[in-house]
């Protein structure tokens, strides 16, 4: 029986899609607090304000992150959600589950909490919604002992690293994304659970430039698979695409008639670096100019394959708008080999973090610190050599300046006098 009348929420159930309201009503049959939650949400819709208080520090012993405190400001009306904390549970790499794991997870959560989950939060974690303060430790105990899993990150920590499905199922992957994701999760346990950073830090790993986890837009450090050698071409298969024997894009756009496949229009002319040529029989690629964008491979996967000398491109500084506006990650290392134990990568990460922890202000993401201090300082402290692949176009060079000691013979001009005549 519904405890509260919820006309505003009920309306959400009338749309064509499954509704969380229906799910919550189902859960409310066995969980009293979910009834209160429905009532609270209805009141929020009516009052047009949230009825959760801001912040809250709760946690489990040994960890400084992983639990987000939630208290309602109307415990008088909805006592079941007086304390209704959120637990983040570290998802497995690429989110591969057995049904057994999921069943156990739900059992643990129905035993200790509200039974409501969010699969998954935008960082990637499994989100368990609605835990009373006293149940935090028992939930944590069961998660770690019975399920062999762990809490994820929250607050100013390394957030749970996330990756695309990678080599497990995707032929485009140039990277064992799961191995790397699992590897860095284990390597940086302290950073993940015990806040010591100026603010949050996210690693996201995509096996290729299609970037299915949107690492370039969401991660402080994006790791994107790429290759060094040539795209592998099967000319026979190219001709088969042109002859209409294979559906382009793996048949993804077959819902509408686009006319016969036009390789010039759909592939060659759309190559961002214009490095392809089709003479009616053979497809040629000038691999020196190719920037590994994946477009041609996506369109003709049976004919074109990623190269065999594989590794990753590392980019830094992506984030959603917080203090400053949204920012995409900037390329800092065009190619790095990515073989376990990933020592080269870890050495880079350590240098980057040392600098950020030393210089970063409270709540300053690394991308904002780079904006404030300059990319030049970043590549100096991380001991990266500036190379042409780091920039878009010649003379659009945003961050490399010569220093006096780097110029043979030094500067002979008086820079101040020069700047007076040539203002920037």
């Amino acid at each position, binding site marked *: 029986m519904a405890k509260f009348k919820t006309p505003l929420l009920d309306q959400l159930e009338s749309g064509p899609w499954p509704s969380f309201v229906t799910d919550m009503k189902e859960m409310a049959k066995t969980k009293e607090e979910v009834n209160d939650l429905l009532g609270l949400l209805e009141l929020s819709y009516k009052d047009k304000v949230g009825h959760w*208080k801001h*912040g*809250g*520090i*709760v*946690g489990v*012993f*040994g*960890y*400084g992150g992983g639990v987000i*405190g939630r*208290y309602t400001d109307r415990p008088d009306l909805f006592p079941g959600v007086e*304390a209704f904390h959120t637990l983040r549970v570290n998802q497995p790499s690429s989110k591969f589950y057995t049904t057994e794991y999921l069943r156990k997870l739900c059992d643990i959560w129905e035993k200790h909490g509200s039974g409501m989950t969010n699969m998954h939060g935008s960082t990637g974690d499994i989100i368990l919604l609605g835990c009373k303060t006293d149940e935090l430790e028992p939930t944590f105990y069961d998660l770690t002992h019975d399920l062999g899993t762990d809490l994820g990150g929250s*607050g*100013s920590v390394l957030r749970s690293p996330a990756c695309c499905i990678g080599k497990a199922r995707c032929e485009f992957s140039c990277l064992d994304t799961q191995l790397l994701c699992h590897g860095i999760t284990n390597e940086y346990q*302290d950073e993940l659970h*015990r*806040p*010591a950073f*100026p603010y949050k830090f996210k690693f996201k790993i995509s096996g290729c430039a299609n970037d299915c986890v949107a690492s370039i837009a969401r991660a402080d450090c994006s790791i994107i698979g790429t290759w060094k050698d040539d795209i592998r071409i099967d000319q026979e298969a190219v001709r088969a695409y042109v002859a209409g024997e294979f559906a382009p894009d793996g048949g993804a756009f077959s819902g509408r008639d686009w006319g016969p496949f036009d390789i010039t229009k759909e592939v060659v002319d759309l190559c961002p670096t214009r490095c392809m040529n089709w003479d009616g029989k053979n497809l040629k690629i000038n691999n020196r100019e190719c920037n590994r964008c994946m477009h041609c491979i996506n369109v003709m996967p049976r004919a074109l394959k990623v190269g065999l000398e594989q590794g990753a491109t590392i980019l830094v500084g992506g984030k959603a708008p917080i203090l400053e506006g949204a920012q995409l990650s900037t390329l800092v290392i065009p190619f790095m080999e990515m073989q376990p134990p990933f020592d080269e990568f870890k050495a880079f990460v350590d240098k980057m973090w040392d600098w950020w*922890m*030393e210089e970063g202000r*409270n*709540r300053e993401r690394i991308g904002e610190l780079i904006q404030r201090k300059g990319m030049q300082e970043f590549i100096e402290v991380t001991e990266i050599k500036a190379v042409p692949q780091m920039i878009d176009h010649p003379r659009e060079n945003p961050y490399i300046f010569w220093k006096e000691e780097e110029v043979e013979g030094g500067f002979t001009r008086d820079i101040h006098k020069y700047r007076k005549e040539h203002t920037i």
Partner: protein
Amino acid sequence: MPKVEYKGDSWMVDDDGFIDDFENWNQNWVEYTIGTEGVTEMTEDHWKLVNYIQEYFKEYGIAPMVRLLTKNTGFKLKYMYELFPSGPAKGACKVAGLPKPTGCV
């Protein structure tokens, strides 16, 4: 705000059990809070951390960032969690009588 009592003293605390005002901090508060934060006894090292947090708070009005804690006490992060199992923010700051830190530590 709920009220808590211990050995004849009483304090107003927030939802997470942080003191309402640093002015009301005293020895009894320490004894009372270590019980909830998993500390059995305040050793010299516990005090070193608490003292530093209090000094910083008196000067700047906020809790110090974790990096400053490690730098000024010489304690490794892991060791701070051994001292205060609920961590510097929830544990040490609470015992030190700071109002709830807002995302600093």
